[in-house]
């Protein structure tokens, strides 16, 4: 299957004027919260040229029962981030620009594409207090990347957000010298939450001074402060990663104090109690995966289809899981969820380490999500917060069970309206990345990034049949005639 899609990808990758394509679908999520029944969508030159009610004609591509959505937009991911982008010697690396450094050949992008993600915000890592500038990219397309490739075609917005990290991540591993002589840089950087905030404040105050100096025509230049200044002028949104509730409160306080014109919260794992303040401050939130204890999320999480998918790459299959001691995995019709016994849970973790990570099993995540609940997206949505969902590291493994669409499904399972869930993985994150008028919706003039799902995209057993990016089919899983 993967081979097939890889081949199709190669064919489709050639940039050429494409034949117009007509898709006739039974159901269509526009992406802005609207749903249409029986629609015909016409694509030409990588754009959507027509969206109208209608039924299938002979030349139209049609799969019975399938649903069309805009290509999914991952509002917060770490695809292609690692190695070359992890600069740890300083706590502030504001001028680090991910667009120049991210590995666009990373297999993560193919994983994402396979699960319907056609564009994504790439976030700098959370190791530094001010990590750098994130980029908004398409997950495929442009020229095939090689040593001399120009990535420009895939990078839609090279300055889509400035990463500021609050909480435990930037101080993790740092320690106080305690009077000992040491040359380790880890003995210098912040080692408390408080110190992290102090560094944020310090550098933004410097940036304010820097801006004053610039106004006075003083000959100053500082690459990092340039970036902060441009964020203060509102040219780059400031994306603050804050998980614990008090980190979220700190972010709101800093916004006011430092005059951040455009702040977006990332992860916000414990923010549901603060919906009111977030709405008042007009702060959008991009949630990471629901970080929860093993039993509450994983145990009730994976559905039969997911479990099959999870088991299929390895030699163990679900039937076999039943055969082992304590084989009490049982399927609940009502919730569509499997209740797993301990052995199966252990198997899950052997099979899918990333799965566990997405569910908060990495130590850092767990300690920063004391009050977390998988219902958080639904609660924020209900509180009126501009909510998007992000896959975080979920696409960085070949296993796709925690992918972006899974976050949306989980949000729906915990109470979010389906149309909102789709909006939170399409039009809303596109808007946050400054691309709201170009992608994230099925509307005339928008990029022809589309996903045709075998059923309702939010149903646990549906999968992408077609993934179309810039008008070209990049993933084709249609049943063979």
């Amino acid at each position, binding site marked *: 299957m993967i081979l097939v899609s890889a081949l199709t990808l190669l064919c489709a990758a050639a940039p050429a004027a494409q034949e117009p394509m007509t898709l006739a679908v039974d159901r269509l999520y526009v992406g802005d919260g609207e749903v249409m029944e029986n629609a015909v969508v016409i694509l030409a030159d990588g754009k959507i040229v027509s969206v109208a009610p209608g039924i299938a004609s002979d030349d139209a591509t049609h799969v019975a029962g399938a649903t069309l959505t805009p290509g999914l937009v991952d509002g917060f991911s770490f695809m292609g981030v690692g190695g070359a982008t992890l600069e740890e010697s300083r706590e502030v690396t504001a001028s680090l620009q991910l667009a120049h450094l991210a590995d666009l050949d990373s297999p993560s992008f193919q994983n994402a594409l396979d699960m319907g993600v056609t564009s994504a915000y790439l976030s700098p890592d959370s190791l530094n207090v001010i990590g750098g500038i994130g980029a908004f990219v398409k997950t495929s397309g442009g020229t095939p990347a090689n040593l001399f490739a120009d990535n420009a075609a895939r990078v839609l917005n090279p300055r889509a957000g400035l990463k500021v990290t609050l909480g435990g991540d930037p101080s993790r591993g740092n320690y106080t010298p305690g009077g*000992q002589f040491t040359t380790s840089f880890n003995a210098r950087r912040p080692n408390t939450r408080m110190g992290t905030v*102090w560094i944020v404040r*310090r550098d933004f105050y410097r940036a304010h001074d820097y801006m004053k100096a610039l106004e006075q025509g003083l000959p100053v230049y500082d690459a990092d402060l340039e970036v902060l200044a441009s964020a203060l002028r509102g040219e780059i949104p400031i994306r603050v990663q804050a998980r614990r509730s008090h980190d979220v409160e700190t972010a709101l306080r800093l916004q006011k104090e430092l005059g951040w014109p455009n702040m977006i919260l990332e992860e916000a794992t414990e923010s549901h109690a603060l919906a009111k303040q977030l709405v008042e401050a007009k702060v959008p939130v991009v949630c990471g995966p629901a970080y929860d204890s093993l039993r509450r999320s994983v145990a009730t999480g994976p559905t039969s289809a997911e479990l099959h998918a999870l088991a299929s790459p390895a030699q163990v299959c679900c039937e076999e899981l039943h055969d082992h001691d304590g084989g009490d995995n049982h399927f609940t019709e009502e919730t569509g969820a499997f209740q797993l016994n301990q052995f199966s849970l252990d198997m899950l973790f052997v099979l899918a380490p990333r799965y566990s990570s997405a569910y908060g099993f990495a130590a850092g995540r767990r300690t920063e999500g004391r009050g977390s609940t998988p219902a958080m997206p639904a609660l924020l949505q209900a509180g009126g917060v501009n909510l998007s969902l992000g896959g975080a590291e979920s696409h960085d493994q070949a296993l796709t069970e925690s992918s972006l669409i899974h976050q949306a499904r989980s949000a729906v399972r915990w109470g979010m309206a389906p149309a909102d869930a789709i909006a939170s993985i399409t039009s809303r994150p596109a808007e946050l990345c400054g691309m709201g008028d170009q992608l994230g919706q099925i509307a005339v003039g928008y990029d022809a990034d589309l996903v045709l799902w075998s059923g309702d995209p939010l149903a646990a057993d549906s999968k992408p049949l077609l993934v179309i990016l810039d008008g070209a089919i990049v993933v084709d899983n249609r049943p063979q005639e």
Partner: protein
Amino acid sequence: MLLTATLLLGCAPAAMPAQQTTILRPDAIVAEDGSLQEGMAVVIKDGKIVEVAASPKATGTEVQLSGVLAPGMVDSFTGRGADRFLTEQSEAATPDLLAVDGLDLDHPAWQAMLERGVTTVHITPDPTNVLSGWGTVVSVAGDSRKERVLKQTSLPIASLLQSSVSDNRIGPTSMAGAIERLNQSIAKLGIESLDNSAWFFVENSEGVSAAKEIMSTAKTHQFRMVLWGDVADYGGAAAGQLVGIPTFGNGAVARNVETWKRMAKAGTSFAFGSRGGSGEWSSLRISAMTLSRFIGNPGAAWAAVSSNPAKMLGMDDQIGSLKAGQRADLVLWSAHPLDASAAVQSVLIGGNTVYRAPAPEDKQ
């Protein structure tokens, strides 16, 4: 009888809207001098004490309480209730560090404080840098952050604790160096921004005179000392002053009984902070009891955990005693709070019942 009384206090104020006037009639109240006064009524309205009198003028719902009503205790300086540590040693001076940024309002420690009759705490960055940053004053319970954080930034914390601020890598390495750095960073901070007071953590008479010297250049500004370590070292520096002291740990506190007595005689008054003590929440109260035994003055000992910390924080108009205009942060004890056999029955913060002791059979 005890049980019904607990229920009364437990249910009555909670069931009533906070705006209504409630007249609390306990067996006795703890007056500011630490003595018990019987037959007094405490009138609360809108989360504040509006009147304390034997026969109050106000009318409202009367609630009979069996026990002793005292103001909630105030912890002068602590690190509990914040996320992990408040020790940021990346630089010798960290004047912009705000304890409020490390504040964790969901921390389990808050409940522990409540159960021990503490209603307000001052959280400070650790005094490990010459200028460690700013403290924050927090109410132990409340509905929102806005209600809880009484003072976002209280005052700057300076430290001349030689052993703590010394650092072979970034300096200073001596008291002289510490004083120099402190001078520099205070100059940078701008003395005007010091509001009207700063706290100096000092551990010997050198520290005291250095602190006095530094603050004398600021002329109009006051400063408060927190006496760390062996009190015997301070000489007469603390005479007639209000000073912060860490709660007594299990260590050698009694060795200095005579020093404590001398200091009390010289007019020094004390305010306890639980940082540097044994870390146990009850240590605030235990320390007050111990001080009472040391100096033979229960009133001064009670003040060290109630009105004095409030004075140290410049908030004695809001917290620390039973006076009209103060926040209705009240604790009902089964006897005088300095009686070790007294237990917390219930706690009101801002006029709302936020804690009720479990029924006697659930105890132990």
